[in-house]
């Protein structure tokens, strides 16, 4: 039961490995970025999970005692989401430039052309 109860952490691990695998295995530069995105997003789930308390509400000061979720991991991950967006947009901008320079976004074709450059 304990294993099932931690299902959000299992999702984190599975997503992380999927994303990582896509980054490594795909030769298409855009697909690599997609994989990278999944990889980063999985970490968001890790952070959001750890701040969540079952039955907890939003962390607002009220008169009576309430259980509230820890807001700090959520704030932290907002920062990480911004970083993720910046990384993705920069990565895509580079892919556009690469496509202009090489006429392809397939890694092996770029590699062949780079080899020719070296000669």
């Amino acid at each position, binding site marked *: 039961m304990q294993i099932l109860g931690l299902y959000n952490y299992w999702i984190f691990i599975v997503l992380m490995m999927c994303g*990582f695998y896509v*980054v490594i295995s795909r030769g298409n*530069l855009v697909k*690599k970025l997609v994989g*990278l995105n999944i*990889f*980063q997003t999985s*970490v968001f789930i*890790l*952070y959001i999970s*750890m701040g969540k308390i079952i039955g907890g509400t939003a962390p607002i000061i009220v008169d009576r005692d309430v259980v509230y979720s820890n807001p*700090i*991991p959520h704030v*932290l991950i907002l*920062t*990480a989401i911004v*970083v993720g967006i*910046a*990384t993705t947009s*920069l*990565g895509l901008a*580079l*892919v556009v*430039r*690469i496509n202009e*320079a*090489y006429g392809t976004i397939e890694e092996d074709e*770029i590699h062949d052309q*780079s080899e020719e*450059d070296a000669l």
Partner: protein
Amino acid sequence: MIDHLPALQVVIPLMAAPLSALFRPGRAVWLLAMTACGLSLLIASLLLQQVLTQGIISYPMGNWPAPWGIEYRIDAANAFMLLIVAGIGTVVMAFARTIVEQRIRLSEYKQPWFYTAYLLCMTGLLGITITGDAFNVFVFLEISSLSSYVLISLGRDRRALTASYQYLIMGTIGATFILIGIGLLYVMTGTLNMMDLAARIPAVADTRTIRAAFAFLTIGVSLKLALFPLHLWLPNAYAYAPSAVTAFLAATATKVAVYVLLRFFFTIFGVDFSFGTMRLDLVLLPLALVGIFSASVVAIFQTNIKRMLAYSSVAQIGYMILGISLVSVTGLTATISHLFNHALMKGALFMALGCISFRIGTVQLDRMAGVGRAMPWTMGAFVVGGLSLIGVPLTAGFVSKWYLIVGALEKGWWPVAVLVLITSLLAVVYIWRVVETAYFKPAPEDHVVSEAPLPLLIPTWALALANLYFGLETSINAGVARKAAEMLLGVGP
């Protein structure tokens, strides 16, 4: 004013960055960037002085007290790093203007954006160094990384684009690993402040979560610092980036990552956990040795000299990691002192190459024949940097190699000391190839080359002379380094 120096250290380049994007191309924007760098250097030296006389400085950002707010915490180790980053940043900025105007892939009206990216990169590196908050390290790390991807992609060769893309993928994986590590630490301790983490980790150290956090952080930071075999992004990135960018990144970016590693191993996890429980030295030692040896050998066979020096950087990082794996004051002194000395030597070498490529348009070895007679000052600086890289006495490089060998012998690891000497000989081989071609091969007859212009030569020689100066005057690169090493290991005063 003096109380707010820690904040100003980061804020000044951070504010100057968007400001320079508003300028027209020309001298004014460079002056602005130069002023920001100069002020950073001034602040860094004041902070170092203050730390050495008064001890650790703690600065609560926005007056929110630590452990809730972000604390900037400056001790001997990071005051020393700040000086390296700000110092190299300033010298390379002086060098960059001519390069930006003529040698990067940017249309003229976009040139001010180069300074924006450069200042942001410097902000990030200074921020990583100065902060006392683990999550803040990640944020600044991404600021510096994202701007360095942009800077690398500005190289004229189209391979700069793919090099930058490759670095982006590897760098983001590294940064995400660091983020996971910090998250796992937060789960177990409920804090992000480094001193607070250090106080709370021992109670929960014997858990799988903390060990996993340790592993993620080690791998993530090792990717950023290009520890063998995670160095694959580095040679292309250094080889195809504009020369001013290569000089800046080679001298600072990987050094700051080594500092982060030191901070996590020694301050946050503590020596007992990192090297007692986890036996990290057993992992680092072989990787450092294989890295030093294989990268030095590969460097010998490179025909692109920038690429050759990039491989040499991987080897030099190996020396730094070797110093860490000795886990002694002498070994750590060697590491920290090599951070400083390597910044000086690689800065000088890459700037000298920048001068050469400015004149002959390439850094391929076969095209450099006869350059030594046509550009005597440039090659002179290259030779001085090269001697320092080899570790010849009276140069800065000798100081750190000396400590490294003494540290290895203290442990009775004489094969390690012998290997350090052998790899220094390999450095002689690859530096000599350049010297031989530049001085002793006849220049092609149709090839008329003149000396590099003064705006390039002066910063190059400034660093070359620094290599000689700090070879004799070792109070900073050995004295302060030793203090920092004692502080990190928790021995001494």
